[in-house]
Protein backbone atom coordinates (compact mmCIF):
# COMPACT_ATOMS: atom_id res chain seq x y z
CA UNK A 1 0.00 0.00 0.00
CA UNK A 2 1.12 3.50 -0.81
CA UNK A 3 1.24 5.76 2.17
CA UNK A 4 -0.20 9.25 1.81
CA UNK A 5 1.94 12.24 2.47
CA UNK A 6 0.59 14.35 5.26
CA UNK A 7 -0.71 17.76 4.19
CA UNK A 8 1.94 19.34 6.31
CA UNK A 9 4.57 17.66 4.20
CA UNK A 10 6.20 15.76 6.99
CA UNK A 11 4.69 12.32 6.31
CA UNK A 12 6.62 9.14 5.80
CA UNK A 13 7.04 8.12 2.14
CA UNK A 14 7.04 4.44 1.34
CA UNK A 15 10.19 3.21 -0.34
CA UNK A 16 8.03 0.93 -2.45
CA UNK A 17 7.02 2.86 -5.59
CA UNK A 18 4.37 2.09 -8.22
CA UNK A 19 5.34 1.79 -11.88
CA UNK A 20 3.65 3.63 -14.75
CA UNK A 21 3.92 1.65 -17.96
CA UNK A 22 2.77 2.19 -21.56
CA UNK A 23 0.11 -0.28 -22.71
CA UNK A 24 1.26 -2.98 -25.08
CA UNK A 25 -1.16 -2.04 -27.91
CA UNK A 26 0.71 1.17 -28.68
CA UNK A 27 3.67 -0.46 -30.40
CA UNK A 28 5.86 2.18 -31.95
CA UNK A 29 6.33 2.09 -35.67
CA UNK A 30 8.25 4.74 -37.61
CA UNK A 31 7.58 5.17 -41.31
CA UNK A 32 10.53 5.30 -43.69
CA UNK A 33 8.52 5.79 -46.90
CA UNK A 34 5.26 7.65 -47.54
CA UNK A 35 3.75 8.73 -50.88
CA UNK A 36 6.62 6.74 -52.45
CA UNK A 37 9.06 9.26 -50.99
CA UNK A 38 11.77 8.58 -48.46
CA UNK A 39 11.58 10.33 -45.14
CA UNK A 40 14.39 12.92 -44.99
CA UNK A 41 17.31 12.24 -42.67
CA UNK A 42 16.70 13.39 -39.11
CA UNK A 43 12.90 13.63 -39.47
CA UNK A 44 10.71 11.32 -37.39
CA UNK A 45 7.44 10.21 -38.97
CA UNK A 46 5.53 8.13 -36.46
CA UNK A 47 2.63 5.88 -37.42
CA UNK A 48 -0.46 6.79 -35.46
CA UNK A 49 -3.09 4.10 -36.12
CA UNK A 50 -6.63 4.20 -34.79
CA UNK A 51 -9.87 2.28 -34.86
CA UNK A 52 -12.86 4.19 -33.59
CA UNK A 53 -16.59 3.46 -33.57
CA UNK A 54 -19.03 6.35 -33.84
CA UNK A 55 -22.73 5.91 -33.03
CA UNK A 56 -24.78 7.93 -35.51
CA UNK A 57 -28.52 8.55 -35.14
CA UNK A 58 -30.80 9.13 -38.12
CA UNK A 59 -33.19 10.90 -35.77
CA UNK A 60 -36.41 12.00 -37.44
CA UNK A 61 -35.42 10.60 -40.84
CA UNK A 62 -34.90 7.09 -39.43
CA UNK A 63 -38.13 6.10 -41.21
CA UNK A 64 -36.37 6.58 -44.55
CA UNK A 65 -33.60 4.08 -43.74
CA UNK A 66 -36.09 1.72 -42.15
CA UNK A 67 -38.07 2.01 -45.39
CA UNK A 68 -35.07 0.97 -47.50
CA UNK A 69 -34.75 -2.17 -45.37
CA UNK A 70 -38.46 -2.86 -45.93
CA UNK A 71 -38.35 -2.13 -49.68
CA UNK A 72 -40.11 1.25 -49.67
CA UNK A 73 -38.81 4.62 -50.76
CA UNK A 74 -40.10 7.42 -48.54
CA UNK A 75 -39.98 11.15 -49.17
CA UNK A 76 -41.48 14.13 -47.35
CA UNK A 77 -43.79 16.90 -48.51
CA UNK A 78 -44.85 20.17 -46.89
CA UNK A 79 -48.57 20.55 -46.22
CA UNK A 80 -48.41 24.34 -45.90
CA UNK A 81 -46.28 25.16 -48.95
CA UNK A 82 -48.64 23.86 -51.64
CA UNK A 83 -47.20 21.96 -54.57
CA UNK A 84 -43.57 22.74 -53.82
CA UNK A 85 -42.56 19.16 -54.54
CA UNK A 86 -41.50 16.10 -52.62
CA UNK A 87 -38.16 16.02 -50.83
CA UNK A 88 -35.91 13.05 -51.50
CA UNK A 89 -33.61 12.96 -49.48
CA UNK A 90 -36.40 13.58 -46.98
CA UNK A 91 -36.27 16.25 -44.30
CA UNK A 92 -38.34 16.44 -41.14
CA UNK A 93 -38.88 20.19 -41.50
CA UNK A 94 -39.70 22.26 -44.57
CA UNK A 95 -36.79 24.70 -45.20
CA UNK A 96 -39.24 27.34 -46.48
CA UNK A 97 -41.72 27.52 -43.56
CA UNK A 98 -40.07 25.32 -40.85
CA UNK A 99 -43.27 23.27 -40.45
CA UNK A 100 -42.97 19.52 -40.04
CA UNK A 101 -43.56 17.78 -43.36
CA UNK A 102 -45.54 14.56 -44.04
CA UNK A 103 -44.15 11.26 -45.26
CA UNK A 104 -45.18 10.03 -48.71
CA UNK A 105 -44.28 6.91 -50.68
CA UNK A 106 -42.28 7.77 -53.81
CA UNK A 107 -43.68 6.63 -57.16
CA UNK A 108 -40.57 5.50 -59.03
CA UNK A 109 -42.31 4.32 -62.20
CA UNK A 110 -40.96 7.29 -64.18
CA UNK A 111 -37.47 7.47 -62.61
CA UNK A 112 -34.56 8.20 -64.97
CA UNK A 113 -30.84 8.91 -64.77
CA UNK A 114 -30.30 12.70 -64.50
CA UNK A 115 -26.51 12.46 -64.62
CA UNK A 116 -23.83 9.85 -63.91
CA UNK A 117 -20.15 9.18 -63.33
CA UNK A 118 -18.38 5.87 -63.03
CA UNK A 119 -15.80 6.02 -60.29
CA UNK A 120 -12.54 4.14 -60.54
CA UNK A 121 -10.58 5.47 -57.57
CA UNK A 122 -13.03 5.95 -54.68
CA UNK A 123 -11.94 7.16 -51.28
CA UNK A 124 -11.23 4.86 -48.34
CA UNK A 125 -14.32 3.29 -46.82
CA UNK A 126 -16.21 2.94 -50.11
CA UNK A 127 -18.05 -0.36 -49.74
CA UNK A 128 -18.98 -1.15 -53.36
CA UNK A 129 -16.80 -2.73 -56.04
CA UNK A 130 -15.30 -0.59 -58.80
CA UNK A 131 -15.94 0.50 -61.47
CA UNK A 132 -19.15 1.74 -59.87
CA UNK A 133 -21.58 3.91 -61.86
CA UNK A 134 -22.85 6.63 -59.53
CA UNK A 135 -25.98 8.43 -60.65
CA UNK A 136 -28.36 11.23 -59.76
CA UNK A 137 -32.00 10.25 -60.08
CA UNK A 138 -34.72 12.38 -61.64
CA UNK A 139 -38.32 11.59 -60.67
CA UNK A 140 -41.35 13.68 -61.75
CA UNK A 141 -42.87 15.56 -58.81
CA UNK A 142 -39.67 15.38 -56.75
CA UNK A 143 -37.94 18.77 -56.30
CA UNK A 144 -34.52 17.16 -55.71
CA UNK A 145 -32.19 14.71 -57.53
CA UNK A 146 -31.20 11.91 -55.17
CA UNK A 147 -27.65 10.58 -55.53
CA UNK A 148 -27.39 6.80 -55.84
CA UNK A 149 -25.76 4.06 -57.95
CA UNK A 150 -26.52 1.38 -60.51
CA UNK A 151 -26.01 -2.11 -59.09
CA UNK A 152 -26.11 -3.61 -62.59
CA UNK A 153 -24.96 -2.05 -65.85
CA UNK A 154 -24.13 -2.99 -69.43
CA UNK A 155 -22.14 -1.37 -72.25
CA UNK A 156 -23.09 2.28 -72.72
CA UNK A 157 -24.87 2.39 -69.36
CA UNK A 158 -25.70 4.49 -67.55
CA UNK A 159 -26.80 7.27 -69.89
CA UNK A 160 -28.76 10.45 -69.21
CA UNK A 161 -32.46 9.70 -69.49
CA UNK A 162 -32.02 5.95 -68.87
CA UNK A 163 -35.25 4.55 -67.35
CA UNK A 164 -34.46 2.91 -64.02
CA UNK A 165 -36.17 1.17 -61.11
CA UNK A 166 -35.06 0.88 -57.49
CA UNK A 167 -33.59 -2.24 -55.92
CA UNK A 168 -33.48 -2.63 -52.15
CA UNK A 169 -30.75 -4.55 -50.37
CA UNK A 170 -31.73 -7.90 -48.88
CA UNK A 171 -29.09 -7.45 -46.18
CA UNK A 172 -29.66 -3.90 -44.98
CA UNK A 173 -26.68 -1.87 -43.83
CA UNK A 174 -28.93 1.05 -42.85
CA UNK A 175 -26.95 3.35 -45.13
CA UNK A 176 -27.89 4.95 -48.45
CA UNK A 177 -26.12 1.98 -50.11
CA UNK A 178 -29.21 -0.13 -49.30
CA UNK A 179 -30.83 1.58 -52.29
CA UNK A 180 -29.56 1.03 -55.82
CA UNK A 181 -31.08 1.12 -59.30
CA UNK A 182 -31.19 -1.11 -62.38
CA UNK A 183 -32.49 -0.64 -65.91
CA UNK A 184 -36.27 -0.66 -66.26
CA UNK A 185 -35.96 -2.31 -69.70
Amino acid sequence: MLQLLSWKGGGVVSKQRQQVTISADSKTKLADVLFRQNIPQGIILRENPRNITHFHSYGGISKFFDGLAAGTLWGTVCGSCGNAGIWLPPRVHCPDCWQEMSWVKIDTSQATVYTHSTTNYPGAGFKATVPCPLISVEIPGICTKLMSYLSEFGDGEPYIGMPIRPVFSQNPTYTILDLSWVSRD
Partner: protein
Amino acid sequence: MISFGNGNLRVPKLSRPVYMVAAGLTDFRKFYPEKQSTELCLESLKMAVEDGLGISPRDFKKMVNFCVYSQFADHFGDQLLAAAKIHDYLGFDPLGNIEVKTGGATGGSSVLAGVMAIASGYASLVPVIGWERMDEVNTRQGNAYIASAACKDFESELGWLYATYYALMMRRYIHEYNPNRETLTKIAQKNHHYARFSPYSQLPGDYTVDEILKSAVVSDPLTFPECCAMSVGAASIVLADEETAFRLTDHPVSVVGTGSGSHTLRTADRRNMPVLLLPNERPQLYQDRKNEWPGFTSFLAARFAAYLAYNMADITDPVKELDVLETHDAFTVSDIQTYEDIGLRPYGEGADFIESGDAFIGGRLPTNLSGGLLGSMHSVGATGIFQLSEIFWQIRGEWNKFHADDKYWGRFGKTKPNNFENLQVSNARRGMAISHAGTGSHVTAIILERGWSSE
Protein backbone atom coordinates in the same frame (compact mmCIF):
# COMPACT_ATOMS: atom_id res chain seq x y z
CA MET B 1 -38.08 27.30 -54.56
CA ILE B 2 -35.77 29.97 -53.23
CA SER B 3 -37.13 33.50 -53.45
CA PHE B 4 -35.46 36.65 -52.17
CA GLY B 5 -36.66 39.27 -49.72
CA ASN B 6 -35.17 42.76 -49.79
CA GLY B 7 -32.91 42.04 -46.83
CA ASN B 8 -31.38 39.05 -48.60
CA LEU B 9 -30.00 41.10 -51.48
CA ARG B 10 -28.66 43.97 -49.40
CA VAL B 11 -25.28 45.00 -50.78
CA PRO B 12 -22.53 44.89 -48.13
CA LYS B 13 -21.01 48.17 -46.98
CA LEU B 14 -17.80 48.58 -45.00
CA SER B 15 -17.99 51.13 -42.19
CA ARG B 16 -14.45 52.28 -42.98
CA PRO B 17 -11.88 51.44 -45.68
CA VAL B 18 -9.87 48.22 -45.41
CA TYR B 19 -6.49 47.62 -47.08
CA MET B 20 -4.27 44.67 -47.77
CA VAL B 21 -0.64 45.55 -47.12
CA ALA B 22 1.40 42.34 -47.38
CA ALA B 23 1.37 38.69 -48.45
CA GLY B 24 3.60 35.67 -47.95
CA LEU B 25 3.64 32.02 -49.02
CA THR B 26 5.50 28.81 -48.45
CA ASP B 27 5.92 26.43 -51.32
CA PHE B 28 3.31 23.71 -51.64
CA ARG B 29 3.99 20.00 -51.66
CA LYS B 30 2.11 16.74 -51.57
CA PHE B 31 4.29 15.60 -48.67
CA TYR B 32 6.11 17.97 -46.33
CA PRO B 33 7.61 15.97 -43.44
CA GLU B 34 10.44 18.49 -43.03
CA LYS B 35 8.15 21.06 -41.41
CA GLN B 36 5.24 21.12 -38.99
CA SER B 37 2.21 23.34 -39.64
CA THR B 38 3.47 25.81 -37.04
CA GLU B 39 6.74 26.22 -38.94
CA LEU B 40 4.98 26.62 -42.30
CA CYS B 41 2.60 29.28 -40.94
CA LEU B 42 5.46 31.20 -39.38
CA GLU B 43 7.46 31.12 -42.60
CA SER B 44 4.59 32.45 -44.71
CA LEU B 45 3.88 35.32 -42.32
CA LYS B 46 7.59 36.04 -41.93
CA MET B 47 7.83 36.47 -45.69
CA ALA B 48 4.87 38.89 -45.66
CA VAL B 49 6.41 40.95 -42.87
CA GLU B 50 10.10 40.92 -43.81
CA ASP B 51 9.97 40.77 -47.62
CA GLY B 52 6.63 42.55 -47.97
CA LEU B 53 6.53 45.25 -45.31
CA GLY B 54 10.27 45.36 -44.82
CA ILE B 55 10.02 45.56 -41.05
CA SER B 56 11.12 43.23 -38.29
CA PRO B 57 8.75 40.64 -36.83
CA ARG B 58 9.24 42.33 -33.46
CA ASP B 59 8.06 45.72 -34.78
CA PHE B 60 5.20 44.12 -36.70
CA LYS B 61 3.93 42.26 -33.68
CA LYS B 62 3.74 45.45 -31.64
CA MET B 63 1.08 46.74 -34.06
CA VAL B 64 -1.14 43.66 -34.38
CA ASN B 65 -4.40 43.58 -32.44
CA PHE B 66 -6.36 40.58 -33.75
CA CYS B 67 -5.62 37.44 -35.80
CA VAL B 68 -7.68 35.21 -38.09
CA TYR B 69 -6.73 31.57 -38.74
CA SER B 70 -7.84 29.53 -41.69
CA GLN B 71 -7.81 25.74 -41.70
CA PHE B 72 -10.35 23.53 -43.45
CA ALA B 73 -10.20 20.22 -41.65
CA ASP B 74 -9.31 19.41 -38.08
CA HIS B 75 -9.24 15.71 -38.93
CA PHE B 76 -6.48 16.20 -41.54
CA GLY B 77 -4.24 18.03 -39.07
CA ASP B 78 -5.49 15.77 -36.27
CA GLN B 79 -5.27 18.63 -33.80
CA LEU B 80 -8.27 20.50 -32.45
CA LEU B 81 -7.63 24.15 -31.64
CA ALA B 82 -4.61 24.05 -33.92
CA ALA B 83 -4.98 27.82 -34.29
CA ALA B 84 -4.12 28.25 -30.61
CA LYS B 85 -0.89 26.37 -31.20
CA ILE B 86 0.01 28.47 -34.22
CA HIS B 87 -1.00 31.73 -32.49
CA ASP B 88 1.28 30.81 -29.59
CA TYR B 89 4.07 29.70 -31.95
CA LEU B 90 3.93 33.12 -33.63
CA GLY B 91 4.11 34.76 -30.22
CA PHE B 92 0.79 36.59 -30.53
CA ASP B 93 -0.66 35.66 -27.13
CA PRO B 94 -2.70 37.16 -25.48
CA LEU B 95 -4.24 38.84 -28.56
CA GLY B 96 -7.70 37.65 -29.53
CA ASN B 97 -8.07 35.34 -32.51
CA ILE B 98 -10.64 33.26 -34.35
CA GLU B 99 -10.37 30.24 -36.60
CA VAL B 100 -12.74 30.21 -39.56
CA LYS B 101 -14.12 27.10 -41.26
CA THR B 102 -16.13 27.02 -44.50
CA GLY B 103 -14.64 24.05 -46.38
CA GLY B 104 -12.74 24.94 -49.54
CA ALA B 105 -13.83 28.58 -49.11
CA THR B 106 -12.19 28.79 -45.69
CA GLY B 107 -9.44 31.07 -47.00
CA GLY B 108 -11.86 33.53 -48.57
CA SER B 109 -14.12 33.46 -45.52
CA SER B 110 -11.15 34.06 -43.22
CA VAL B 111 -10.12 37.12 -45.20
CA LEU B 112 -13.74 38.27 -45.07
CA ALA B 113 -13.66 37.88 -41.27
CA GLY B 114 -10.45 39.93 -41.15
CA VAL B 115 -12.03 42.60 -43.35
CA MET B 116 -15.02 42.74 -41.00
CA ALA B 117 -12.72 43.11 -37.99
CA ILE B 118 -10.98 46.11 -39.56
CA ALA B 119 -14.09 47.67 -41.12
CA SER B 120 -16.00 47.56 -37.85
CA GLY B 121 -13.23 49.32 -35.99
CA TYR B 122 -12.61 46.31 -33.76
CA ALA B 123 -9.05 46.06 -35.09
CA SER B 124 -6.51 48.09 -37.06
CA LEU B 125 -3.95 45.45 -38.10
CA VAL B 126 -4.94 41.82 -38.69
CA PRO B 127 -2.84 38.99 -40.11
CA VAL B 128 -4.89 36.24 -41.77
CA ILE B 129 -2.99 32.96 -41.72
CA GLY B 130 -4.06 29.81 -43.57
CA TRP B 131 -2.65 26.33 -43.93
CA GLU B 132 -3.53 22.70 -44.46
CA ARG B 133 -1.67 19.53 -43.63
CA MET B 134 -3.01 16.82 -45.96
CA ASP B 135 -0.09 14.39 -45.74
CA GLU B 136 -0.81 12.63 -42.45
CA VAL B 137 -2.92 10.05 -44.30
CA ASN B 138 -2.63 8.33 -47.67
CA THR B 139 -4.48 9.68 -50.70
CA ARG B 140 -7.44 7.28 -50.41
CA GLN B 141 -7.99 8.25 -46.78
CA GLY B 142 -7.45 11.89 -47.71
CA ASN B 143 -10.22 11.63 -50.30
CA ALA B 144 -12.50 10.07 -47.69
CA TYR B 145 -11.68 12.91 -45.28
CA ILE B 146 -12.57 15.49 -47.93
CA ALA B 147 -15.78 13.60 -48.73
CA SER B 148 -16.70 13.91 -45.04
CA ALA B 149 -17.55 17.41 -46.23
CA ALA B 150 -20.41 15.89 -48.22
CA CYS B 151 -23.66 14.81 -46.55
CA LYS B 152 -22.76 11.71 -44.56
CA ASP B 153 -26.31 10.34 -44.64
CA PHE B 154 -27.01 10.64 -48.37
CA GLU B 155 -23.85 11.35 -50.39
CA SER B 156 -20.49 10.57 -48.72
CA GLU B 157 -20.98 6.79 -48.91
CA LEU B 158 -21.47 7.13 -52.67
CA GLY B 159 -17.81 7.22 -53.60
CA TRP B 160 -16.11 9.00 -50.69
CA LEU B 161 -14.70 11.09 -53.51
CA TYR B 162 -15.32 14.72 -54.42
CA ALA B 163 -14.08 14.11 -57.96
CA THR B 164 -17.20 11.96 -58.46
CA TYR B 165 -19.51 14.69 -57.20
CA TYR B 166 -17.95 17.11 -59.70
CA ALA B 167 -17.94 14.50 -62.46
CA LEU B 168 -21.72 14.18 -62.01
CA MET B 169 -21.98 17.93 -62.65
CA MET B 170 -19.54 17.69 -65.56
CA ARG B 171 -21.57 14.97 -67.31
CA ARG B 172 -24.68 17.08 -66.93
CA TYR B 173 -22.86 20.23 -68.10
CA ILE B 174 -21.68 18.47 -71.25
CA HIS B 175 -25.23 17.15 -71.82
CA GLU B 176 -26.88 20.57 -71.43
CA TYR B 177 -24.37 22.82 -73.18
CA ASN B 178 -22.23 20.51 -75.30
CA PRO B 179 -18.89 22.34 -75.01
CA ASN B 180 -15.82 20.94 -76.74
CA ARG B 181 -14.40 18.35 -74.39
CA GLU B 182 -10.95 19.69 -75.34
CA THR B 183 -11.80 23.14 -74.02
CA LEU B 184 -12.11 21.74 -70.51
CA THR B 185 -8.67 20.19 -70.74
CA LYS B 186 -7.25 23.53 -71.88
CA ILE B 187 -8.03 24.94 -68.44
CA ALA B 188 -5.83 22.26 -66.88
CA GLN B 189 -3.20 22.80 -69.57
CA LYS B 190 -3.15 26.56 -68.94
CA ASN B 191 -2.90 26.32 -65.16
CA HIS B 192 -0.27 23.56 -65.05
CA HIS B 193 1.69 25.70 -67.53
CA TYR B 194 1.48 28.90 -65.49
CA ALA B 195 2.51 26.88 -62.42
CA ARG B 196 5.88 26.39 -64.12
CA PHE B 197 6.67 30.05 -63.40
CA SER B 198 5.83 29.90 -59.71
CA PRO B 199 8.43 28.88 -57.16
CA TYR B 200 5.53 27.97 -54.84
CA SER B 201 3.81 25.51 -57.17
CA GLN B 202 3.29 21.82 -56.60
CA LEU B 203 2.24 20.51 -60.02
CA PRO B 204 3.95 22.49 -62.76
CA GLY B 205 4.02 20.92 -66.20
CA ASP B 206 3.37 21.27 -69.89
CA TYR B 207 0.76 18.82 -71.12
CA THR B 208 -0.84 18.39 -74.52
CA VAL B 209 -4.62 18.28 -74.70
CA ASP B 210 -4.26 14.67 -75.78
CA GLU B 211 -2.13 13.78 -72.76
CA ILE B 212 -4.76 15.21 -70.44
CA LEU B 213 -7.60 13.42 -72.23
CA LYS B 214 -5.71 10.11 -72.22
CA SER B 215 -4.60 10.28 -68.57
CA ALA B 216 -6.20 7.83 -66.14
CA VAL B 217 -9.85 8.60 -65.45
CA VAL B 218 -10.54 9.31 -61.78
CA SER B 219 -14.31 9.35 -62.14
CA ASP B 220 -15.49 9.68 -65.70
CA PRO B 221 -15.16 12.04 -67.49
CA LEU B 222 -12.59 13.71 -65.14
CA THR B 223 -8.95 12.68 -65.68
CA PHE B 224 -6.13 13.10 -63.17
CA PRO B 225 -4.63 16.37 -64.56
CA GLU B 226 -8.15 17.86 -64.38
CA CYS B 227 -8.34 17.40 -60.61
CA CYS B 228 -6.51 19.25 -57.85
CA ALA B 229 -4.20 17.29 -55.55
CA MET B 230 -3.56 16.85 -51.83
CA SER B 231 -1.31 19.65 -50.72
CA VAL B 232 0.66 20.95 -47.73
CA GLY B 233 1.68 24.57 -47.20
CA ALA B 234 0.71 27.96 -45.77
CA ALA B 235 -0.27 31.45 -46.91
CA SER B 236 -0.60 34.72 -45.00
CA ILE B 237 -1.84 38.18 -45.75
CA VAL B 238 -1.99 41.33 -43.62
CA LEU B 239 -5.04 43.62 -43.49
CA ALA B 240 -5.04 47.14 -42.08
CA ASP B 241 -7.15 50.24 -41.61
CA GLU B 242 -6.27 53.32 -43.65
CA GLU B 243 -4.00 55.02 -41.17
CA THR B 244 -2.01 51.87 -40.41
CA ALA B 245 -1.89 50.85 -44.08
CA PHE B 246 -0.30 54.11 -45.24
CA ARG B 247 2.08 54.05 -42.30
CA LEU B 248 3.30 50.64 -43.48
CA THR B 249 3.37 51.16 -47.25
CA ASP B 250 2.85 53.79 -49.93
CA HIS B 251 1.08 51.20 -52.06
CA PRO B 252 -1.68 49.51 -50.09
CA VAL B 253 -4.34 47.58 -51.96
CA SER B 254 -7.94 48.42 -51.17
CA VAL B 255 -10.71 45.87 -50.50
CA VAL B 256 -13.49 47.31 -52.66
CA GLY B 257 -15.88 44.39 -52.98
CA THR B 258 -16.82 41.45 -50.80
CA GLY B 259 -19.55 38.89 -51.27
CA SER B 260 -20.37 35.61 -49.63
CA GLY B 261 -22.93 33.07 -50.77
CA SER B 262 -24.08 29.58 -49.94
CA HIS B 263 -26.06 26.67 -51.26
CA THR B 264 -27.11 23.17 -50.19
CA LEU B 265 -24.31 20.83 -49.12
CA ARG B 266 -26.04 18.09 -51.11
CA THR B 267 -25.97 18.76 -54.84
CA ALA B 268 -29.18 16.71 -54.88
CA ASP B 269 -31.15 19.40 -53.06
CA ARG B 270 -30.67 22.26 -55.55
CA ARG B 271 -34.18 23.33 -56.44
CA ASN B 272 -35.07 25.08 -59.63
CA MET B 273 -35.35 28.89 -59.43
CA PRO B 274 -35.14 31.93 -61.73
CA VAL B 275 -31.62 33.07 -62.64
CA LEU B 276 -30.33 35.79 -60.30
CA LEU B 277 -29.10 38.43 -62.73
CA LEU B 278 -25.75 40.18 -62.44
CA PRO B 279 -25.30 43.90 -63.24
CA ASN B 280 -24.09 43.00 -66.76
CA GLU B 281 -27.09 40.78 -67.58
CA ARG B 282 -30.54 41.82 -68.86
CA PRO B 283 -33.68 39.72 -68.14
CA GLN B 284 -34.18 38.88 -71.82
CA LEU B 285 -30.81 37.06 -71.81
CA TYR B 286 -32.42 33.99 -70.23
CA GLN B 287 -36.07 34.35 -71.23
CA ASP B 288 -35.91 31.35 -73.61
CA ARG B 289 -33.81 29.26 -71.26
CA LYS B 290 -34.97 25.61 -71.06
CA ASN B 291 -32.40 24.20 -68.64
CA GLU B 292 -32.98 24.24 -64.92
CA TRP B 293 -31.14 26.81 -62.82
CA PRO B 294 -28.93 26.46 -60.94
CA GLY B 295 -29.37 22.73 -61.55
CA PHE B 296 -26.16 20.74 -61.56
CA THR B 297 -24.39 23.09 -63.95
CA SER B 298 -24.26 26.35 -61.97
CA PHE B 299 -23.33 27.48 -58.48
CA LEU B 300 -25.95 29.69 -56.86
CA ALA B 301 -23.43 30.47 -54.09
CA ALA B 302 -20.91 31.82 -56.62
CA ARG B 303 -23.54 33.88 -58.42
CA PHE B 304 -24.81 35.30 -55.12
CA ALA B 305 -21.30 36.20 -53.93
CA ALA B 306 -20.49 37.86 -57.27
CA TYR B 307 -23.82 39.72 -57.19
CA LEU B 308 -22.92 41.30 -53.86
CA ALA B 309 -19.26 41.97 -54.67
CA TYR B 310 -19.97 43.53 -58.09
CA ASN B 311 -22.71 45.75 -56.73
CA MET B 312 -20.48 46.81 -53.85
CA ALA B 313 -17.54 47.58 -56.15
CA ASP B 314 -19.78 49.18 -58.82
CA ILE B 315 -18.69 46.67 -61.42
CA THR B 316 -21.05 46.45 -64.37
CA ASP B 317 -18.85 44.55 -66.82
CA PRO B 318 -16.46 42.18 -65.03
CA VAL B 319 -14.37 41.12 -68.06
CA LYS B 320 -13.70 44.77 -68.85
CA GLU B 321 -13.44 46.18 -65.35
CA LEU B 322 -11.31 43.47 -63.75
CA ASP B 323 -7.67 43.13 -64.82
CA VAL B 324 -6.79 39.82 -63.19
CA LEU B 325 -8.77 36.94 -61.69
CA GLU B 326 -8.16 33.90 -59.52
CA THR B 327 -10.84 31.20 -59.58
CA HIS B 328 -11.14 28.06 -57.48
CA ASP B 329 -10.20 25.61 -60.26
CA ALA B 330 -10.43 22.45 -58.15
CA PHE B 331 -11.70 20.67 -61.29
CA THR B 332 -11.77 21.81 -64.90
CA VAL B 333 -15.54 21.67 -65.03
CA SER B 334 -16.05 23.81 -61.93
CA ASP B 335 -13.95 26.51 -63.55
CA ILE B 336 -16.20 26.69 -66.63
CA GLN B 337 -19.24 26.76 -64.37
CA THR B 338 -17.73 29.60 -62.36
CA TYR B 339 -16.97 31.73 -65.45
CA GLU B 340 -20.71 31.75 -66.09
CA ASP B 341 -21.75 32.21 -62.46
CA ILE B 342 -19.58 35.30 -62.12
CA GLY B 343 -20.83 36.70 -65.41
CA LEU B 344 -17.75 36.41 -67.63
CA ARG B 345 -19.98 34.73 -70.21
CA PRO B 346 -23.72 33.96 -70.31
CA TYR B 347 -24.81 30.54 -69.04
CA GLY B 348 -23.80 27.80 -71.44
CA GLU B 349 -21.03 29.84 -73.07
CA GLY B 350 -18.29 29.57 -70.43
CA ALA B 351 -16.03 27.63 -72.77
CA ASP B 352 -15.69 30.74 -74.90
CA PHE B 353 -13.86 32.49 -72.07
CA ILE B 354 -11.06 29.97 -72.71
CA GLU B 355 -11.42 29.63 -76.49
CA SER B 356 -11.41 33.41 -77.02
CA GLY B 357 -8.07 33.71 -75.22
CA ASP B 358 -9.57 36.04 -72.61
CA ALA B 359 -8.38 33.82 -69.73
CA PHE B 360 -4.73 33.80 -70.82
CA ILE B 361 -1.89 36.24 -70.18
CA GLY B 362 -2.33 38.97 -72.78
CA GLY B 363 -6.08 38.29 -72.89
CA ARG B 364 -8.86 40.50 -71.56
CA LEU B 365 -9.01 38.90 -68.10
CA PRO B 366 -6.01 36.64 -67.36
CA THR B 367 -7.15 33.96 -64.94
CA ASN B 368 -5.15 31.81 -62.52
CA LEU B 369 -1.76 33.11 -63.56
CA SER B 370 -0.74 31.72 -60.16
CA GLY B 371 -1.18 28.21 -61.55
CA GLY B 372 -4.40 27.91 -59.58
CA LEU B 373 -5.44 24.84 -57.66
CA LEU B 374 -4.74 22.51 -60.58
CA GLY B 375 -1.17 23.65 -61.06
CA SER B 376 0.02 25.27 -57.88
CA MET B 377 -1.69 24.24 -54.68
CA HIS B 378 -4.79 23.34 -52.77
CA SER B 379 -3.66 23.28 -49.14
CA VAL B 380 -7.27 24.03 -48.47
CA GLY B 381 -7.11 26.55 -45.59
CA ALA B 382 -4.34 28.43 -47.41
CA THR B 383 -6.01 28.46 -50.83
CA GLY B 384 -8.20 31.58 -50.68
CA ILE B 385 -5.31 33.46 -49.06
CA PHE B 386 -2.87 32.24 -51.71
CA GLN B 387 -5.25 33.52 -54.42
CA LEU B 388 -5.47 36.97 -52.84
CA SER B 389 -1.69 37.09 -52.35
CA GLU B 390 -1.24 36.59 -56.08
CA ILE B 391 -3.86 39.25 -56.93
CA PHE B 392 -2.21 41.61 -54.43
CA TRP B 393 1.21 41.19 -56.05
CA GLN B 394 -0.26 41.68 -59.52
CA ILE B 395 -1.93 44.96 -58.51
CA ARG B 396 1.26 46.21 -56.86
CA GLY B 397 3.26 45.28 -59.96
CA GLU B 398 5.29 42.88 -57.81
CA TRP B 399 4.69 39.60 -59.64
CA ASN B 400 8.30 39.50 -60.77
CA LYS B 401 9.64 40.42 -57.35
CA PHE B 402 7.96 37.37 -55.83
CA HIS B 403 8.19 34.91 -58.74
CA ALA B 404 11.22 35.72 -60.86
CA ASP B 405 13.73 36.23 -58.06
CA ASP B 406 16.08 33.24 -57.77
CA LYS B 407 15.97 33.76 -54.01
CA TYR B 408 12.51 32.17 -53.82
CA TRP B 409 13.34 29.29 -56.16
CA GLY B 410 16.40 28.59 -54.07
CA ARG B 411 14.47 28.85 -50.81
CA PHE B 412 12.38 25.87 -51.87
CA GLY B 413 15.25 23.92 -53.39
CA LYS B 414 14.14 24.59 -56.96
CA THR B 415 15.73 26.04 -60.07
CA LYS B 416 13.94 28.66 -62.13
CA PRO B 417 13.09 27.27 -65.60
CA ASN B 418 15.19 28.58 -68.50
CA ASN B 419 12.26 29.59 -70.70
CA PHE B 420 10.78 31.70 -67.90
CA GLU B 421 7.70 33.77 -68.81
CA ASN B 422 6.83 37.09 -67.20
CA LEU B 423 3.22 36.82 -66.00
CA GLN B 424 2.89 40.34 -64.62
CA VAL B 425 -0.28 41.87 -66.10
CA SER B 426 0.74 45.34 -67.20
CA ASN B 427 -0.98 48.11 -65.28
CA ALA B 428 -3.21 45.72 -63.31
CA ARG B 429 -5.43 47.92 -61.15
CA ARG B 430 -8.20 45.63 -59.99
CA GLY B 431 -8.57 41.90 -59.41
CA MET B 432 -10.90 39.36 -57.88
CA ALA B 433 -10.52 36.02 -56.12
CA ILE B 434 -13.26 33.39 -55.90
CA SER B 435 -13.00 31.00 -52.95
CA HIS B 436 -15.27 27.96 -53.18
CA ALA B 437 -16.34 25.05 -50.95
CA GLY B 438 -18.07 21.70 -51.31
CA THR B 439 -20.00 21.35 -54.55
CA GLY B 440 -20.72 25.06 -54.11
CA SER B 441 -21.80 25.12 -50.45
CA HIS B 442 -19.90 28.36 -49.71
CA VAL B 443 -18.37 30.86 -52.08
CA THR B 444 -16.73 34.21 -51.44
CA ALA B 445 -15.85 36.87 -53.99
CA ILE B 446 -13.29 39.46 -52.90
CA ILE B 447 -12.31 42.36 -55.13
CA LEU B 448 -9.04 44.23 -54.57
CA GLU B 449 -8.08 47.51 -56.19
CA ARG B 450 -5.08 49.80 -56.27
CA GLY B 451 -5.44 51.78 -53.05
CA TRP B 452 -3.07 54.61 -53.84
CA SER B 453 -3.44 57.41 -56.36
CA SER B 454 -1.10 57.16 -59.32
CA GLU B 455 1.27 60.02 -59.77
